[in-house]
């Protein structure tokens, strides 16, 4: 079995994020770049599926030069090889273009499954896996809290607002996973050393057969008109509990007509 895992380098989840004044794009320089947390679950799921069924895991990432750290991290967790789509013309691509790049990187390489995290913690759109499924014409099995493979069939539990749905399809399929699916492993020292020797293929947009005019910021199909920091909240009242803290909150709720 051949499984692709798509990972994205994002600013550290615990850092404050902001848009750059000049071009209204996310300031990625001011925070450490880390593997999108939800993608760690995708890598773990791919590794577990391969450990149980045999095969190989290829990690795919689109991002600037330094995103190679994120590809390396997936390799040190145990993925076998990497594809890094790195090209200045891709900067500022919207989800529509990103999905085109990812679909091209997947196409024609014999993957049975491609696994994503269910969203990135920077843009938080949750649309790229569905867009990639649409582009490839593959089955979409997303928001999985459980993935099972048997023969050429893959079955997931799709998390819904009131429980889960069981969804089944023949491979190849696009899967995305939620954070409760597994516990991602930490790269071992051995894994980190081994990762240095694993092959990573670097590709440009042109090498993927994409027209430069259809990707990047200038080709985006949506644009930011303006943005501003939310006005700071007026300071509230803070009291220290002297045995009547609960009553005081109730009084506050009453003045605000909540009770």
């Amino acid at each position, binding site marked *: 079995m051949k499984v692709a895992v798509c990972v994205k380098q994002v600013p550290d989840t615990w850092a404050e994020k902001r848009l750059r004044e000049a071009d209204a794009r996310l300031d990625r320089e001011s925070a450490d770049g880390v593997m999108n947390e939800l993608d760690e679950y995708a890598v773990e799921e791919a590794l577990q599926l391969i450990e149980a069924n045999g095969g190989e895991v290829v990690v795919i990432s689109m991002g600037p030069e330094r995103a190679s750290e994120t590809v390396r991290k997936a390799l040190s967790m145990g993925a076998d090889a990497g594809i890094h789509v790195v090209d200045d013309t891709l900067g500022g691509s919207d989800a529509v273009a990103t999905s085109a790049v990812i679909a091209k990187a997947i196409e024609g390489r014999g993957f049975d499954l491609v696994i994503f995290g269910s969203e990135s913690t920077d843009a938080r759109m949750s649309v790229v896996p569905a867009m990639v499924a649409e582009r490839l014409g593959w089955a979409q099995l997303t928001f999985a809290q459980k993935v099972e493979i048997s023969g050429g069939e893959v079955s997931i539990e799709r998390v819904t607002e009131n429980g889960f749905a069981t969804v089944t*399809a023949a491979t190849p399929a696009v899967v995305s996973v939620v954070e409760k699916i597994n516990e991602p492993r930490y790269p071992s020292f051995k894994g980190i050393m081994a990762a240095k020797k694993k092959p990573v293929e670097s590709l440009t947009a042109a090498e993927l057969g994409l027209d430069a005019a259809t990707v990047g910021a200038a080709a985006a199909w949506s644009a930011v008109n303006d943005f501003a920091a939310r006005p700071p909240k007026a300071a509230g*009242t*803070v009291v220290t509990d002297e045995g*009547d803290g609960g009553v005081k909150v109730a009084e506050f709720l009453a003045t605000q007509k909540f009770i």
Partner: protein
Amino acid sequence: MGEVLVLVDEVDGTVKKSTTELLTAARRLGNPSAVWVGPGISDAAMATLGEFGATKVYVAGDADVAKHPVAPAAEVLAQLVAQVSPVAVLVPSTADGKEAAGRLAIRAGAGIITDAVDVTLDGDRVVATQSVFGGSTIVHSTVTHGVPVITVRGNAIAPEAAPVTATREDVSVSLSEAARKATITGHTAAVKGGRPELTEAQVVVSGGRGVGSAEGFSVIEALADTLGAAVGASRAATDAGWYPHQYQVGQTGKTVSPQLYIANGISGAIQHRAGMQTSKTIVVVNKDAEAPIFELADYGVVGDLFSVVPQLTQEIAKRSS
């Protein structure tokens, strides 16, 4: 005025509140037309859609559309986009909604904006307002190519009735082969109490690290139940296994924007603030006076939640009896 397509979100045949919010928003852009994807629309559902201004209700009621996830809604919408050239397509910001919107954007060759908290018309341009980075930044965006496909966050727009008589128009749709590739073979309902759904609740009561244990959450639940509130939890609490993951509020969990948010024993790391910062009124109970969550508080108590919260629960019960 042109048509504005609104994808209906329903549960067991009942129109969800988020749909009435979307119809309200759609009226600012043009004439709302509801799009119902699924078998069996009831008279009650038709009436609700009419009450909030849907002059037309497109019904794709073929049994097949409910057998496959996401893709059928995208294909129905794409077909209608080609047919009626709408001003915009509004979709609820649920997992299903966002994914359907994503697929629609590809099919229709359209730009997409997700998680709008408002939509307005500026001349003939549809402008979406987003509240990003946990509400710290307000962004105005426009789709520049194709029909604007916009997902709208629940609880962001107050629904206002504008009654009309909704006319039903049946849509016959032939699903692509790709849309039929994934099949839903069953539904399993989560065990749930009578509490409102987290992202739709008017009041959310949350617990964090300070709650200390799974048992400790009974104090949080008791307060939630006196207020008719949903229960939320910080990542620290869900990671520790004290409360189920599906109730996590924060960057890696749900984003909520209720009228009232009560944070108990939650320090307020950016991870959590990103999921609740836009709540209208925020009450904080925490032992640590230095906890950053107090910066967001409209009202805060520095104290032990295990004495403050039960007292508050009791006081609310007393006042409402």
